[in-house]
């Protein structure tokens, strides 16, 4: 640009564009407090813990060791608890999707009074704290609980309560996860327009084919998000398995608490925590990648 342009024509003074380094500085200043909080409260303690589980004291100087992890994986109780946690997590996830997909599809495509009621019901667990839910389920599912009583009135006496069995954990965790999962799936389904579905029906697809070939591929991201966040919540859950589950095997959350509090073995509890953390970190990474790819696509288009 020429310097004398102002002398040739009168121009309105335009605000000088802020230098980009200043914009960046402001942005960093804004996110600094929460970032520092996370670093000091989460990352540093986590790293310290992890480091401690990997060090051994050799005549006053710290040395590297895997002995704690070897001990964990050689202990049958620890391994069975880890496997149990995986098992419960995967079964719960499966049940969650089996329950929530029909619900979300219904809420996406139905309208009217009934759909509104179903929506409220599906969100209801969101407002019930886990402890209260656990006791409500004990009342409902326990021996001589509501279900038992109703069944015996109906003449069915063979009821065996799932309380203190793995099924009760799955039941409680599924119940707890329904609102979030339904919300995420319904929001995803609303992104798939009616016209896209109609044009699939037009070329001859039935409901099943429309679901598999048109809807599901387009909501893979919400599904992955629901999967990973539910996985994290379930894998590390404590209240529900503690109150509803069996004494053994235990889920990792309960196991850690007992190792730490009852058996007073903080070192072992720390190892269990790091193992749990690493497994969750892998799934967390899946979540971050899913969200990042979504963001990238939104920027591209």
């Amino acid at each position, binding site marked *: 640009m020429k310097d004398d342009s102002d002398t040739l024509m009168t121009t309105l003074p335009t605000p000088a564009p802020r230098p980009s380094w200043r914009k960046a500085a402001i942005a960093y200043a804004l996110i600094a407090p929460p970032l520092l909080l996370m670093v000091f409260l989460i990352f540093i303690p986590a790293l310290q813990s992890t480091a401690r589980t990997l060090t051994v004291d050799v005549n006053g100087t710290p040395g590297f060791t895997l002995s704690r992890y070897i001990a964990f994986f050689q202990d049958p109780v620890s391994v069975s608890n880890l496997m149990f946690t995986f098992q419960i997590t995967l079964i719960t996830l499966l049940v969650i999707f089996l329950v929530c997909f029909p619900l979300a599809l219904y809420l996406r495509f139905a309208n009217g009074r009934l759909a509104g009621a179903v929506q409220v019901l599906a969100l209801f667990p969101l407002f019930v704290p886990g402890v209260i839910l656990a006791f409500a389920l004990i009342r409902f599912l326990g021996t001589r609980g509501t279900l038992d009583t109703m069944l015996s009135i109906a003449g069915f006496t063979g009821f065996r309560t799932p309380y203190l069995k793995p099924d009760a954990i799955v039941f409680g965790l599924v119940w707890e996860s329904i609102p979030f999962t339904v919300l995420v799936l319904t929001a995803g389904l609303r992104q798939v*327009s009616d016209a896209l579905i109609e044009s*699939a029906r037009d*070329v*001859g*697809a039935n409901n099943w*084919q429309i679901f598999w070939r*048109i809807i599901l591929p387009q909501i893979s991201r919400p599904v992955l998000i629901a999967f990973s966040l539910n996985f994290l919540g379930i894998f590390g859950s404590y209240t529900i398995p503690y109150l509803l589950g069996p004494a053994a095997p235990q889920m990792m959350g309960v196991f850690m608490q007992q190792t730490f509090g009852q058996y007073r073995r903080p070192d072992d509890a720390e190892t269990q925590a790091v193992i749990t953390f690493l497994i969750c970190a892998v799934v967390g990474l899946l979540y971050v990648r899913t969200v990042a790819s979504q963001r990238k696509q939104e920027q591209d288009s």
Partner: protein
Amino acid sequence: MATLDLTGIYKQFGSVTAVHDVNFQVQDGEFMCILGPSGCGKSTLLRMVAGFEMPTSGDIRIDSESVTALSANRRPTAMVFQKYTLWPHMKVSENIAFGLQLRRLPRAVIEQKVKESLALVSLSGYEDRYPAQLSGGQQQRVALARALVLEPKILLLDEPFSSLDAILRVRLREELRRIQRRLKITAIFVTHDQEEALTLADRIAVMNAGHIEQLAAPSEIYASPSSLFVADFIGAMNLIPGTVSGGRLMLGALPVDAPAGLSDGPVTVAIRPEDLVVLDAPQASAWSMTVEQISDLGYYRRAILEMPGMQSLKIFLPKALEAQERGTLHVYARRYLVYRDGNAPQEVVRGLPVSAA
């Protein structure tokens, strides 16, 4: 080779009657346009043919077989929608192949058909693009290919080009017409753009408030609109209220020739701007009017004329004619239609006054 019959079609949405007693037949290989203002029920009618809406009553037959009870995925129709409806997670070739895969055709056949249909819409070589990598016009062409590849008996199009710019819209509709002629496919095209309908259609069904006002060839619709609504909706038209008393037709204070046998009462006279001719001298049977406004439209001009006791009139002026605003023109209606109470109009054609010749 297919015909479509609609008999007694009604569609009710709650208290709204969207479609009201529609009856017509589309001939084999015919290109029919459904034309009407926004909200008159065009899309609803088309969607009933496609199977997306169930008629409240009435019967839809394709090749004399009722399809009314069939769901959309079982009907031999294919639709091109107004909005872009390519599936975003599929490539162009996969979009087109989807319907063929559902029909379990062999892979090689599918590939061949996809290739042919892309060639048909002049998009060869675009197989591996995703919809997001196509322009709006290209997306609609793929949507057309996706519909045509299934060899439907009836092709349905709901304002497929209305979101494209004017030049592209004209190009695509010409292309559509060429393809339709070549394949000799029966087609129904919904639009609210009369120019689109007049240029494309073998016949036009003009729709208003849920029912068909007139169904005829474009030239006939233009020349003899069967109702005041059609007269007003299609092309430019001067609609002038008048009264008949004692066999004389009065437009304001001016008498004009009345059609024979018209009883006394109010009428509406419809005159196309091009049926108003300018005389070079005043005449008893002509109107001397003041030029209010002239707009230059390139190869002709459009003027608005006024005179006391008469509503303003639109008229087309040749470039050669001398006229300016505030000047006076003597105009003579050589053809007009007289409408009364929803009856078919009566036509009056008059020769030019002697001195004007």
